[in-house]
């Protein structure tokens, strides 16, 4: 099946099997490996991207279901060489160790601040319910997000 969508502002059109997951489409068909696959069962959040402005788990959406959609991935955040403030904050505050969960964490965090510009620590922790990190203990992730909220 032909699927046409916009990824990070660029129109793409590819022939895919209906069973292709959006995350596999991004990684295998488009070669954009910034979006990770952790569990592939909608639990871990490593695969979070934005579809039409909302964060979703791209391992639980078919590529064909994104027909006509605007998809933003971690690759679409930076402006050229300049990191997105959330990426910069994760670097600054040590919000990552191995980095596996980071793309999903950052995409979730960016979505949070869209709806809630000044979240409390508890609200940040609640929002990260669907994002798992095996390294950081979350503390510095929460700190990173908080620091961006305080910037804005």
């Amino acid at each position, binding site marked *: *099946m032909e699927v046409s969508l916009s990824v990070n502002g660029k129109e793409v059109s590819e022939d895919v*099997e*209906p*069973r292709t997951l959006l995350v596999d489409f991004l990684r295998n068909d488009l070669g954009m490996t910034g979006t990770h696959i952790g569990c*592939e*069962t*909608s*639990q871990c*959040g490593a695969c*979070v991207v934005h579809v039409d402005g*909302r*964060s*979703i*788990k791209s391992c*639980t*959406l*078919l590529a*064909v*279901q994104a*027909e006509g959609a605007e998809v933003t991935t971690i690759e679409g955040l930076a402006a050229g060489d300049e990191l997105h403030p959330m990426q910069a904050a994760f670097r600054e505050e040590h919000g990552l160790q191995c980095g596996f969960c980071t793309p999903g964490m950052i995409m*979730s965090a960016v*979505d*949070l601040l869209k709806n809630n510009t000044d979240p409390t620590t508890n609200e940040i922790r609640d*929002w990260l*319910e*669907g*994002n798992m990190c095996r390294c950081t203990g979350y503390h510095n992730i929460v700190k990173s997000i908080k620091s961006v909220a305080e910037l804005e």
Partner: protein
Amino acid sequence: MYQFDYEAPDSIEAAVAALRENDESKLVAGGMTLLPTMKLRLARPEVLIDINNIESLFGISELEESLVIGAMTRHADVAMSSIVQNFIPGLACLAESIGDPQVRNRGTIGGSVANNDSAADYPAGLVGLDATVVTDRREISADNFFTDMFETALEVDEIITAVRIPIPQRATYMKFPNPASRYAVVGVMIAEVSDGIRVAVTGASPCVFRATVLEEALEEDFTPEAIANIAIDGVQFNEDIHASAEFRAHLVKVMARRAVLAISS
């Protein structure tokens, strides 16, 4: 995942026709339950009929003392809706308590209700609030809709179009969530509606049920103490790695007492 064909009709009629065309076809709404089930090969539809393009299935409105919530309305949209927050804040809280933000951004009320997971939140919400499930062909009261674990009164080619929820005098939902998934180990919806107090329980047994002994006691005296010493008999409580049957029976009463307290002025 096995291979399948995919269609995305833009009308209810076309979706029903597509369901009738192939016995092995299945609707996909938010996909939060169906896609993982297909990955596990527990479901193997030949055709997926995506109802995300049917505009009439989306949205929330207030109509004749009721809220009408389209089947494709996402959990996040119920949680954030000013109409729901205004008229049935307990339902907005219920929606907000489901899974995580990304699950709430995709999962739908229609999908949750059609799936009737024994640990899902909406079944308790709908039964507790005396709601009606509206389909492409009829209306079914929530009391008659949820028939057994993963079973409902729906026919194989029937599509939920909306749920209609009469605005209660007061209502709230208390759940003891599974710390990993947020599904209800036990969830209790208590509402005061036009014909009295309703207490609906999810997570505790294979299918949502009304705790009528608690309803009767609360009808007489709407206080946490009124239900403190009542035994809930005749219920088969679930027993699994998350909680024993005894613990679940205990949690029903604890959640119910908290709910009563929360909506007592």
